[in-house]
Each structure stands twice: as structure tokens, then as C-alpha cells.
């Protein structure tokens, strides 16, 4: 009769062990995989997440893909219901498609249960990174990384007396970070082809990438400054006269003239990494790039510290910046949903968000951004706040990829391949987009 007794003893022991376990729903010792793009902030997140592992004993694995391939790879993953990613820091443009096709978990209930308030985050970031439909109260992501397009420049070159004199004689004003696109082109032309420290340098590194989204992000930086609105605010999806307005066409022409006059040779397919390369190797006086890279650039041995300065996207008719940034979401196909939600809960805490900013991640939390000392925490912090005050994003529709690809083609054809005029390019784009929206049923 020993057998049953032994068995019941072992059952009792197991029950006792289980009952002594953690009261929460998730299991320790599990591993979560977080998918993001491979760039500086991702490395900072690896560092930050060590805190999470220490607190919850859940291990973190990371899958980082470089930006030019990020969208393709991750959207493919989501569309094939892949189980690779438990957490996804997806681009803001994916929200529409991911929400409607069930890729992301809707987080409203979870937020309510765990006292995570969206009012703790900057409204612009909540709007852009979390909600679908836009501006509604449906949340599919927690704002994770605030970002916008900004500019860097060689402060040390701008400080050289000989150059300052020459510039002043030519343009009757000081050589300083430009406040308008017209000023920017003047400065770029000034530096183009000049010899500095024995090497030929060039004016500016701007986005011209064909494959994913590069040239669109660059061109819209100009267009937003000219006041571009995609459609009639009173009549959604009515784009004629708005997307191809005179201002938009003028901005596109201007961007092309900037590309032709003042960029390094061979710069016809350049995006973030190429811009960083050009700036860090001392090739260009100014560089357009995402704020996300500025902490790393500031720490750079060759061009950082005193040699680098930052300025917000110049205005022409309005002050506006291209929105970047991402929110963090839970993938609905993940087998580790409870653990993934734990990560979101941990990430939303104010002190974690403060540490995130200190490591180089752009927190969207009010505790960080609304702090009075924020502007002094880094030389680009004030510019970042200014940029986030006036950001505009590309379409976030489920069909955003088609809209983006159409713009990539039309704009690259015009700016780099010299096809047609700016007006023809934008008119063709409106036609392309109208076709897409008709297919989507958003226009009759």
C-alpha cells in the first residue's frame, strides 16, 4: 500500500510547490522575442531591458532588422501569422493594417486593468503611434519611441572665421543654422565642392532612397514646410488641389534642385545609414536624419561633441517636421501573450521611461518631456520638443504600402531619374492614390 501514499505525497508536494510560486499569471524563465529595426535606439533598449529581466526573470531575445528591409520582413512575418515576434515595435504606418487584420492585440482592457493612462503620454504621440482609427480611443500600441526628422551640421566648420567672413560678404547674414529652406540651400551651395582640411566636401546629405521609404520621407520634409496637406480637411480622401497643390509642386522642385546642386557624388539611393556615413566621414556640412541618431552622433569621436550642432526642420511657409517614431505592440499570434503584456506594463512606468531617455531612447512620457529641465538634458532636446510640436505623418491607412510605393516611384523618377516635371509627378501621384482609395472603397 506504499504506492498510493507515495503518489499522494508527491501530488501534495507538487501542489505545495505550485502554490508557493509567483501570484501573477506569467511564468518565469520564459523568453520573449522583441522585433525592431537595427539602429542605435535598439541597442539602448537591449541595455534597458536588462532591468526587466532582473525584475521578472523573463529573458529577452531580440530580432533587429536594418531599416531598408524592416518593413518588408516584419510585414511578411505578420502576414504569415509568424510566431517569431512576441513584441513588435512596428512603424507608425503599420497601425491601420495591423489593427484591421488582427495582427496586434487591442490594449484598452489591459491598460484599464493596470492603470496605464494614455494621458501620461504626449498627445501627438498617442495619436500617431497608438490609435486606430486615427484619433479614436482604440489603442493598439504604447508609444515607445518618439521621433522626427531633424538636421545636424558641422558647428566647427560654421565657426571658422574665414568661412564666416566669406559667407557674410556673400549673403549679408551670419553663417548659422538655416531657419528656412531657402537659407538651407544657400548654406549648402556655399559648402559644395569646398576644400576643408585638404578634402573636398559637399553641402548636404538628404534622403534619396528608392527601395523602402527614404526619398518620400525627405521630400515630405520639404513639402510639409511648404504647408502640404494630403487631402481636404472637410472632404477626406479628396486630394486634387491638395496633394498636387502649387506649394507641393514648388517644394518638390526645390528638393530636386537641392539634390542636383549640393549632394555628394553617387548619392542617388541614400537613406539613414548613408547619411550617417557621409556626415561621420566628414563629407558633408549638413545632414538630414532622424532624431533617433542624434545621441550617437553627439558621442561620436570624429564629429561629435563641440563639432556637431543640431537644428529643427527649417520652415518655409509653416513650421513642420516629418514624423517618425514607433509604438510597441503585442503580436496576436504570440504564444507568450501574458509575458509580453508584462513587458508593456514595465515599460510604461515613469522611472523606466526616464532611464530610457537617459540611455538614448526617445521617451514619449510626460514625466520626461514635460519636465522643466528636459531641454537642458541634451543639445538636441529643445529641438526635439519643437519638432514634436509640429509633426505630420504619412498616411497610416491599411493600404499605406501602396500609397508609399506610388510616391517613392513618382518622386524618385522625377528627382533622380529626371523624368517629367514636378507637376506631372504630383498629378500622376494623385491619380495613383485615387485609384488605391477607389479600390479600398474609400472613394466612390
Amino acid at each position, binding site marked *: 500500500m506504499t504506492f498510493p501514499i507515495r503518489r499522494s505525497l508527491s501530488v501534495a508536494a507538487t501542489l505545495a510547490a505550485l502554490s508557493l510560486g509567483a501570484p501573477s499569471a506569467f511564468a518565469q524563465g520564459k523568453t520573449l522575442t522583441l522585433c525592431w529595426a537595427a539602429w542605435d535606439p535598439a541597442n539602448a533598449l537591449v541595455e534597458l531591458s536588462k532591468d526587466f529581466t532582473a525584475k521578472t526573470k523573463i529573458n529577452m531575445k531580440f530580432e533587429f532588422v536594418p531599416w531598408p528591409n524592416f518593413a*518588408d520582413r516584419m*510585414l*511578411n512575418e*505578420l*502576414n504569415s501569422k509568424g510566431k517569431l515576434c512576441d513584441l513588435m515595435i512596428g512603424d507608425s504606418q503599420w497601425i491601420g*493594417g495591423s489593427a*484591421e*487584420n*488582427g495582427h496586434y492585440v487591442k490594449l484598452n482592457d489591459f491598460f484599464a486593468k493596470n492603470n496605464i493612462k494614455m494621458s501620461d503620454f504626449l498627445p501627438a504621440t498617442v495619436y500617431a503611434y497608438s490609435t486606430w482609427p486615427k484619433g479614436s480611443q482604440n489603442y493598439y500600441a504604447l508609444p515607445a519611441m518618439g521621433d522626427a526628422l531633424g538636421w545636424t551640421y558641422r558647428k566647427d566648420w560654421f565657426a571658422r572665421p574665414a568661412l564666416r567672413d566669406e559667407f557674410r560678404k556673400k549673403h549679408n547674414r551670419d553663417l548659422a543654422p538655416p531657419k528656412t529652406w531657402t537659407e538651407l540651400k544657400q548654406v549648402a551651395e556655399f559648402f559644395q565642392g569646398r576644400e576643408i582640411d585638404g578634402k573636398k566636401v559637399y553641402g548636404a546629405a538628404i534622403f534619396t532612397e*528608392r*527601395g523602402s521609404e527614404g526619398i518620400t520621407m525627405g521630400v515630405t520634409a520639404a513639402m510639409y514646410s511648404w504647408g502640404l496637406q494630403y487631402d481636404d480637411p472637410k472632404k477626406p480622401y479628396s486630394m486634387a488641389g491638395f496633394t498636387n497643390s502649387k506649394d507641393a509642386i514648388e517644394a518638390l522642385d526645390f528638393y530636386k534642385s537641392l539634390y542636383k546642386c549640393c549632394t*555628394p*557624388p*553617387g*548619392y*542617388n*539611393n541614400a537613406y539613414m545609414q548613408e547619411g550617417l556615413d557621409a556626415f561621420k566621414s566628414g563629407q558633408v556640412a549638413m545632414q538630414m536624419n532622424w532624431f533617433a541618431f542624434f545621441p550617437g552622433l553627439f558621442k561620436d569621436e570624429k564629429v561629435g561633441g563641440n563639432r556637431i550642432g543640431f537644428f529643427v526642420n527649417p520652415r518655409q511657409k509653416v513650421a513642420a517636421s516629418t514624423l517618425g517614431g514607433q509604438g510597441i505592440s503585442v503580436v496576436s499570434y504570440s504564444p507568450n501573450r501574458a509575458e509580453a503584456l508584462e513587458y508593456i506594463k514595465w515599460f510604461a512606468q515613469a522611472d523606466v521611461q526616464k532611464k530610457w531617455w537617459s540611455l538614448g531612447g526617445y521617451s514619449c512620457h510626460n514625466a520626461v518631456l514635460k519636465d522643466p529641465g528636459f531641454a537642458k538634458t541634451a543639445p538636441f532636446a529643445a529641438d526635439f520638443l519643437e519638432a514634436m510640436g509640429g509633426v505630420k505623418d504619412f498616411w497610416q491607412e*491599411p*493600404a499605406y*504600402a*501602396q500609397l508609399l*510605393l506610388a510616391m517613392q*516611384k513618382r518622386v*524618385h*523618377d*522625377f528627382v*533622380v*531619374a*529626371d*523624368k517629367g516635371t514636378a507637376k506631372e509627378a504630383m498629378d500622376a501621384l494623385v491619380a495613383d492614390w485615387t485609384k488605391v482609395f477607389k*479600390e479600398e472603397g474609400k472613394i466612390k
Partner: protein
Amino acid sequence: MSRLDPVAQRAAAATPPVVAARLRGLSDRALAWLFIAPTMVLLLAINIFPLLWTIRLSFTNYRANRPNAAVLDIGLTHYRSILTDPDVWAAMQATAHFVFWTLLLQTLIGFFLAWLIDRKFRGHDFWTTVILIPMMLSPAVVGNFWVFLYQPQIGLFNYAVSFFTGIPPSSFEMLGSVRLAPWAIVIVDTWMWTPYVMLICLAGLRSIPDYIYEAAEVDRASKWRQFWGITLPMALPFIMLAVLFRGIENFKMFDMVNLLTNGGPGSTTEVASITLKREAFEKWRTGYSSAFAIILFVAVFGLANIYVKALNAVKNR
């Protein structure tokens, strides 16, 4: 004569005929089907069934990224819009330019090399192997790497050209110029695949028996006449075969061009496969891209069919 196992030999000799007949095992018919079946099953599952599915999809508005959306039959809408889309024709033009020039260059250079190697100089085996190396690389990795080589400022190509011609290296961009980009991809493909054509032509040249040449010498035919009268005609089936294989492959070309130019600048080098990939896996217009795929397949199939008939005619003359 036969190299049969001596034990088996003795066993066979010792077995009475009746038993031997039964021991012959599976009949020829059964064996034939047993041997062919696995191949056919694999092809049916991975090639045919998907092809039929593609045809089915091409008549719908299905999108793979909207699995929950309603799927409608829309008949020939996709086919009509593809055949009337100027961007599609531009892509076909880029593809045609690519296929034509790569075939021409690879055939001329490949055959010429094969003819030289057929002189059988000392060490020709070694040098043949060396020439083969480029085609062992992954086309995607090659495309990626030639971006580096084609860079105006840090790349080797511009410097090499400048070394031989004196043009300053930064004055031209292979990948950024609308004029030069189509040639950039032709150059890389030729670099990679000329050895393949060379190999097949070499096989052809080696298959020509010596006695034909000897007879021609006896008839006092000049080397020139021998080449045009014997070498070229007898090697022609092989050359045509190489052109067929390379033609089919380059019509479908994706990897190398995608990584080299991404279809740019603009859409100058956007060959058909790149358009297809954008439609299918970036815009997720599954129905539309299925129709495009069927059109491409029919085009290649039709052309190959005609070509193979011509090839057979040449072989049998």
C-alpha cells in the same frame, strides 16, 4: 563484360528458371511508375497545385494581408489593367533590354573563350576552373557587393575605368545615372554567367570528332572555311541550348538586380520580377500579381516552345 558479383553469379546459375522468373521482382511497368511517381508527386504539390491556385487567384481581388476580407470574383479585370498599364510595359522593356544584351555578350564572349580553351594549351583545365568561379557566387550577394564596387568615390570600378581612360572617377555614376544603370546590371550579369555559356559551348566543341577536321584538311579547306563550315554549325545546338537556359533565367532575374539597383534610378532598371515582387509582397495585391505572374509565365512558355522547336530542327538537320 559484366562486373557482376561472383556470389550472385553462382546463385543465379544455380536457381532453376521458374524460381528465377518469380525472383525478377517488380515488373518493368510497376518499376517505371514507382520511379517516376515521387518526382511527379513533388512537382504536383510544389509546382502544379500552386500554379492552378495562382490562376484561380488571378481572377479574384484577394489580398494575402487581409485574410478576413471578402473575396470577390472579378474576371479578367486584372489582366486588362496589366496589359494596358504603361508602367508594366516599361518594366517589360527594361527586362527585354537586359535579356537581349546579356545574351548577346555572354554568347559572344563565352563561345570565344570556349574556342580558345579548345586549343588545349598547357594548363587549360586549371584556367577553366578559375573562370568558373564567378558563377558559384550567390547572385544576391554579388548584386550587393557590386554596389560597393560601383560607388563613385570609394569603389574600384570607377577608379579602374579612370586608370585606363583618364576620365575622373567622380564624374560618372554607374548606378545613379539613367543612361548607365541598365549597362551596370548587364556588366555584372555578364561577369557572373559567361562561364556558364562557355562551359556548354566547350561541351559542344569537344563533341566534334577530329576526323571531320582531318577530312577537311585533306580537302584543303582553309581554317576560316573550317570554322564556318564545321565548327560553328556543329556547335550551334549547344550554343542555342546555352542561350535558352540563360534566356529563361534572365527573364526571371530578380536577386541580383534587386540588390544592385532596387529597380532604380526611378524605374529604369525595374525588371518584371521586381515589379512582381512589389505588387505581391509589398502592396500585397495578391490577385493582381497572380495575373501578372500568369502573363509572364505564358510569355516565357510560348517563347521557349517556339525556340525549342527551332533547336530541335537545328539538331536534326
